[in-house]
């Protein structure tokens, strides 16, 4: 058999696809066949490499060359130069933003150096639509081991020993959850995979399903074996079409190989998986709401108990785990609980995937051991703040989390340390903010989201969040009073304490944490009627400095609402009542006469 000399891995994640990675894949294939290299060079679509900032990505193996922002037309050069002549295409190599040097391969990129990929182990490495590539990476070996060598109780024991905690946000011990469900008595039980990823900015679950769908299928079957379920359901939002497609392909392949269905690995264990689509409601990430949505009812939470482990989907015992949690399971079985437990911090084992977004150089998906510091994540892996600006805060945990500041940068992050610092792990969204971001506006942004996403079932969440949002709006407009601040804090606590489900119980967190860490910004809005970072439009005033104004009329001609008056060669004045603060005058003035007050 002739061996391939070179593999070209093209990212086929949603992010890179949006920038034409599919066309790129086809042009690479075409070039390869035109040059007669089909037997030497293999072109493969993979899942996400995580380096979404600079997509589409092409990685060349064996030399680990990492090409960024590759266009379909670049295929010709890559094949002619790199593949045929062995000369790397310099202009496509990744540029280290600090040194401005081109980095020849991924082993020398700061982005990958501090990462440890367990859940993302196959993303960007295998072709997600090829089950054999998954098997070659020890795929389904964990399922085989469980079914043929271990009892359900032993597997559960192993999971408990590993210390794996739910990656969807709650951090509940996975082994314990399995054990509770396994003890419920019923004629039918269900394994549910929660793929209803709803946090703004988080996309790890989508990337895992797009890049390594078999790992989730395998883990669901293992869970089914442990709890005594023969049916699994993946609840996934319909706006993840690529993830759905890859998952379907993977399910079909697994059935063809006999890894789903009856008599798996020659035992009498059987397992089937079904897909249910969600309409993309944030509240359906909550497990009772998710189950109701699966049943065709309104996606509203109900009071626990009964817990799903006792009475869940169709009133049968149901075990709900998140995608990332499942992706860790096969590795734990293969490598052992002790190995897994040796990674991470004291109470949080293993790794966590974070979606880095915001004002950071390397936007993307990363996976680090629990206990890594925020500083390492933001400045080493993330490559620091964009445009050399100053770091202000990082928002973790999405709409349920809070903001951490400079003083928190050296915290070793895990479930407990983040909660202690007034934020939370959540599903792992991480939005980095710089000096230009207004913290009151950020709090309002998240409240806008929760107001929109609240299901409206319980009053504290439905009405309370709305009132919180109105107060924040008032402050952003400079109409807030000191009394509002007290009210804001009190109402936040009421909403937290009295809401029915996790959505309302955590939705005031962004408000409370910004009030704790950036109280002076709230004061500036209320007392001085100023927005320190210049984001709140209502608090800005565009004024013309009489000394610098030469009367060129450029500002007046460009003002969309005719708010600027003045004679030619005379001093111009902005009418503050008419002004909509669009900034057109500031942009057009060549004499630095317009400034923001």
């Amino acid at each position, binding site marked *: 058999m002739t061996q391939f000399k070179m593999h070209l891995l093209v990212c086929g994640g949603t992010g890179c696809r949006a920038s034409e990675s599919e066309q790129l894949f086809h042009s690479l294939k075409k070039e390869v066949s035109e040059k007669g290299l089909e037997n030497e060079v293999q072109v493969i679509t993979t899942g996400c490499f995580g380096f979404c900032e600079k997509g589409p990505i092409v990685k060349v193996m064996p030399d680990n060359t990492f090409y960024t922002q590759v266009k379909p037309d670049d295929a010709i050069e890559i094949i002619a130069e790199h593949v*045929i002549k062995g*000369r790397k295409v310099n202009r496509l190599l990744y540029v280290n933003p600090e040194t401005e040097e081109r980095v020849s391969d991924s082993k020398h990129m700061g982005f990958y150096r501090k990462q440890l990929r367990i859940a993302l182990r196959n993303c960007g490495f295998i072709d997600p639509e090829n089950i*054999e590539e998954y098997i070659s990476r020890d795929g389904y070996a964990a399922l085989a081991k469980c079914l043929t060598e271990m009892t359900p109780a032993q597997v559960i024991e192993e999971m408990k020993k590993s210390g794996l905690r739910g990656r969807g946000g709650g951090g509940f011990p996975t082994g314990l959850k399995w054990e509770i469900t396994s003890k419920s008595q019923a004629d039918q039980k269900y394994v549910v995979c929660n793929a209803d990823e709803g946090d703004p900015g988080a996309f790890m679950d989508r990337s895992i399903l797009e890049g390594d769908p078999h790992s989730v299928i395998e883990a669901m079957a293992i869970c089914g074996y442990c709890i005594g379920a023969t049916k699994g359901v993946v609840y996934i939002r319909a706006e993840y079409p690529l993830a759905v497609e890859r998952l379907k392909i993977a399910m079909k392949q697994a059935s063809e190989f006999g890894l789903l269905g009856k*008599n798996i690995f020659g035992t009498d264990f059987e397992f089937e998986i079904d897909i249910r689509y969600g309409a993309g409601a944030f509240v359906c990430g909550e497990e009772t709401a998710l189950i109701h949505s699966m049943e065709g009812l309104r996606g509203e939470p109900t009071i626990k108990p009964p817990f799903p482990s006792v009475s869940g989907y169709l009133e049968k015992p149901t075990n709900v785990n998140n995608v990332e949690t499942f992706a860790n399971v096969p590795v734990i079985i293969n490598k052992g609980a002790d190995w897994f437990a040796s990674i991470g911090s004291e109470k949080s084992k293993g790794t966590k995937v974070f979606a880095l977004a915001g004002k950071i150089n390397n936007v993307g998906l990363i996976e680090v051991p629990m206990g890594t510091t925020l500083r390492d994540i933001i400045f080493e892996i993330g490559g620091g703040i964009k445009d050399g600006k100053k770091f202000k805060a990082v928002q973790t945990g999405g709409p349920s989390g809070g903001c951490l500041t400079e003083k928190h940068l050296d915290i070793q992050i895990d479930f407990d340390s983040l909660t202690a610092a007034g934020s939370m792990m959540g599903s792992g969204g991480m939005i980095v903010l710089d000096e230009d971001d207004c913290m009151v506006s950020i709090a309002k942004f998240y409240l806008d989201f929760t107001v929109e996403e609240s299901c409206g079932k319980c009053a504290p969440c439905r009405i309370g969040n709305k009132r919180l949002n109105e107060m924040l709006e008032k402050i952003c407009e400079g109409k807030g009073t000191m009394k509002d601040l007290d009210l804001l804090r009190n109402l936040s606590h009421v909403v937290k304490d009295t809401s029915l489900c996790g959505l309302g119980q955590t939705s005031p967190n962004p408000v409370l944490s910004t009030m704790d860490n950036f109280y002076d910004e709230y004061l500036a809005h209320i007392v001085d009627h100023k927005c320190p970072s210049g984001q709140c439009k209502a608090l800005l005033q565009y004024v013309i400095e009489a000394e610098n104004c030469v009367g060129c009329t450029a500002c007046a001609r460009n003002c969309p609402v005719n708010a600027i008056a003045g004679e030619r060669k005379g001093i111009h004045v902005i009418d503050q009542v008419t002004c909509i603060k669009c900034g057109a005058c500031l942009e057009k003035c060549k004499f630095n006469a317009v400034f923001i007050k």
Partner: protein
Amino acid sequence: MTKITSLADLKNIKASVEAKMSLRERSETPDSMVQIRVAMATCGIASGAKIVMDYLINELDKRSIPAIVSQTGCMGYCYAEPTIEVTRPGHQPLVFGYVDSKKADQIIEKYIKNGELLDGIIPVNYENIEGK
């Protein structure tokens, strides 16, 4: 489609795709195995570098030596083409000149397997910026 009904079936599939995947697997940990770079500029290819590279890839595989064989551009030793640079784990790279299949066979047997030096080593006359 044959169904997988036992662990042995699974292992068979794994073994059958191993050759295809090994190139990627090995690239994950390049420092732990023998790395060979074949100079494949115009002069190298004209002197037979392609044949040498194919030979190395197939022979190393046959002899079960985990290695990464990649191609590189002109190393500047055009008088001695085809040239290859061999890096054993933990050792400085060595450059061999005038490599043909026979020479490649000796390099595998003597240098790669046993660390024995042989004729045809080109003294390295440059420093790498990575070492600076």
